């Protein structure tokens, strides 16, 4: 059959995403995911004071800057062997949780569901309900999500002054501790966000929703007439009616670095990821959870516009020298991260699978990985996170007056290697830093979208998104809605597929 190639640019993702897909008839037989932006963040950090990373790296991404700040501060603390007071870890977690909830709600109701009002679905039996809830920037769920996402971010503003782009986590703690007024304000902000989710999204108590532990139980819950028109049941009914539970599987291996460091157990020498939600690699085929080992992370550049090297390199040995050569078989400014040579998916679904969420595991076992499950997991993660926020605020109230910051010695960050790994809104985020003579010598970041949007590696293995669209049949190649559903279910953040170049000296690659 004749093969033709079409280029597809997708918006309602953060940053720029282009896909090239090869079609035989209407079926996708090959795909190339193209990152179109190089900003050279690492070079901005080389030769700077170590703490400057706390100002520069949040600006990698306007939507997950708290996660970058958290990963950067963990890297420096590991480098310096610095302890963190439990109150500081609670505050850091609370802020990262608020950012993740914000992102999950905006991604679902501003970026993902607008595809449901595509003209292809104009005659769908649910079209009127979908339009009422999900019409872009007008539907009731969209307007509600705008309001609560603004409010939950006030938690970050209380401790960090503003969102996005603040630098309130410093090696040794945070810039301010909690006072009684903060506790009251945080309780109200978390409580009112839960209220909205219960009323408009779930139509049930959040704890009752989180208690669902199998696909059967979920289906009975969804069928309750009391909540048929609420946002989550509506999203589920529509998604499954158009087959989103049958497409977009992808890599079948799910990687989580573990969510939210344990305030009691997170302390030097930092040789384990002591997180409240477990880290691990969850395998869709055998349902096994393998322990997470950061040493297994490598990055390949065989199909990226960077100076070639053999195989994959760990970030501490990484280099990223831009080498733009159009027309060959290299096609993106994104690198290809691999975990022990495996192509993996990361994100809320991976986070919940690793953490032992029985509902997500049961859906995965029954239906296999798919687009609907991935999106469903994002709202379930928001609910889970809000319950953690509730308990964190209570724990914080018990620590008012305890230290929130221990100032490190002047030379604590002068020399060494460190890394920090957190679960950002879109999945696992890692920073790796090397400091020599008091200056940053190398900085490498591996972002969630770098995992998901990776190109082919040096073994020719496709990245996760590429795998998840190959084999899909497009009903209308001029308006490839299927591609939009699959890719947007990952909450893509292309601005985050940063490219961190070189090491040692500051180098300019332009004129």
């Amino acid at each position, binding site marked *: 059959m004749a093969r033709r190639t079409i280029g597809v640019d997708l918006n*309602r993702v953060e940053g720029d995403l282009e896909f090239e897909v090869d079609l035989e008839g209407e079926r996708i037989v090959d795909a190339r995911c193209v990152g179109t932006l190089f900003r050279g963040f690492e070079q901005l950090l080389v030769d700077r004071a170590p703490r400057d990373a706390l100002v520069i790296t949040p600006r990698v991404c306007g939507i997950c800057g708290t996660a970058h700040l958290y990963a950067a501060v963990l890297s420096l603390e590991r480098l310096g062997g610095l302890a963190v007071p439990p109150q500081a870890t609670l505050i850091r977690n609370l802020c990262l949780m608020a950012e993740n909830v914000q992102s999950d709600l905006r991604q679902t109701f501003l970026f993902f569901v607008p595809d449901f009002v595509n003209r292809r679905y104009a005659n769908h039996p649910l079209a009127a309900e979908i339009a009422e809830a999900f019409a872009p920037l007008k539907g009731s769920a969209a307007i509600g999500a705008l309001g609560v996402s603004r409010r939950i971010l006030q938690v970050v503003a209380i401790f960090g002054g503003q969102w996005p782009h603040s630098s309130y986590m410093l090696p040794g703690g945070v810039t301010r501790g909690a006072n009684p007024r903060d506790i009251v304000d945080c309780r109200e902000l978390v409580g009112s966000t839960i209220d909205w989710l219960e009323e408009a999204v779930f139509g049930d108590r959040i704890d009752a929703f989180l208690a669902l532990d199998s696909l059967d139980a979920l289906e009975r819950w969804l069928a309750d007439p009391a909540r048929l028109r609420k946002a989550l049941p509506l999203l589920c009914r529509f998604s499954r009616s158009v087959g989103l539970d049958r497409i977009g599987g992808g890599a079948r291996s799910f990687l989580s670095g573990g969510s939210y460091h344990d305030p009691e157990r997170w302390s030097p020498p930092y040789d384990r990821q002591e997180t409240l939600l477990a880290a691990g690699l969850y395998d869709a085929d055998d349902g096994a959870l393998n322990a997470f080992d950061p040493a297994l992370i490598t990055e390949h550049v065989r199909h990226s516009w960077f100076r070639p090297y053999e195989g994959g390199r760990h970030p501490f040995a990484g280099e990223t020298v831009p080498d733009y050569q159009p027309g060959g078989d290299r096609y993106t400014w994104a690198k290809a991260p691999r975990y022990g040579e495996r192509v993996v998916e990361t994100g809320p679904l991976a986070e919940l699978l690793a953490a032992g969420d029985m509902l997500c595991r049961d859906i995965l076992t029954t239906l296999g990985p798919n687009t609907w499950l991935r999106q469903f997991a994002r709202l379930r993660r928001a609910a889970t996170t809000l319950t953690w926020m509730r308990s964190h605020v209570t724990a914080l109230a018990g620590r008012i007056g305890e230290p929130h910051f221990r100032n490190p010695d002047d030379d604590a960050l002068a020399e060494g290697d460190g890394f920090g790994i957190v679960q950002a809104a879109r999945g696992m985020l890692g920073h790796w830093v090397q400091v020599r003579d008091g200056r940053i010598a190398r900085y490498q970041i591996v972002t969630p979208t770098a995992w998901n949007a990776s190109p082919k590696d040096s073994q020719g293995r496709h990245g996760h998104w590429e795998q998840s669209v190959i084999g899909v049949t497009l009903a209308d190649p001029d308006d490839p809605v299927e591609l939009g559903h699959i890719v947007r279910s990952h909450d893509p953040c292309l601005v985050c597929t940063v490219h961190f170049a070189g090491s040692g000296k500051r180098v300019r690659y332009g004129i």
Partner: protein
Amino acid sequence: MANLLWMQTGACSGDSMSLLNADGPSIEGLLRSGEIELLWHPSLSDLPAGAFGRLVERIESGQQPLDILCIEGSIITGPYGSGMFDSHRGRPKMQIAAALAARARTVVAMGTCAAFGGVHAAPPNPSDAIGLQYDHADPGGLLDADWRSSDGRPVINLAGCPVHPLTITRTLSMLAADIPFELDFLNRPAVFYSSTVHQGCTRNEYHEYDVEDHEPGGKACMYFNLGCQGPGTLANCNAELWNNRSSKTRAGVPCFGCTSPNFPRDGDLFRTDKIGDVPITLPLGVSRARYMAYKNLAKAAAPVRLIKRQMEP
């Protein structure tokens, strides 16, 4: 009533997030009232794939009028002046931005990156980033210094990393409703950029009596030792609180001067460079000799409740 095209160049989406944070005027309110008609926003539009390219074609050919063009992000000119570090369907974004600017009634640089180059243009500027009409504080942006849009204005610079949410939506509203406003010496709307970050900071009384912190995490002023640029930075951060709640300096984070053309400055961002005991960069417009005299007197007058850090900022 005005139509709006929002385009991202070398950006992090932070200004788009700031736009979503604005609650009055809000983006959904501006759309609902009809003040703004959104032709395109990369995160918010629901048009099918390929729509952006078709829209750009119609504007370039003059078929589609364009009232307000917002550019978010640095103009990336590398490698070797090609702009291909930042492209759309094989065409450099810097070329698209210039073509749209030539047709727009008003052009707004949304954020310090688009205005002056921003974080991506910090040394060694690996992607050769510049601003729309400036390269830091100097001419040398994508557009000449004497360039004007069809309403006779230079590029309006909404500085900030990110821009304050309400500065975004208020400026859009002023443009849509034809409310006149003045620009300052860096083409920023003076109404939002005439007071310093220091003004309204709740650590101000510490500053007044020269009660200065020497390490982070404290309650006092951060200007003398911890890198705070608040007294020298023009922005409304403490006059209009962020997220309706606070500001960086209130929360103990030094001001990094993100509305300034030299942001981020090339030095330790958490340390104040000083001559003797006094910062090299003085509060805006103050002479060194008089400032030193004033600070010595102020320190002598400091009340015990401040010296003991009893005031919550």
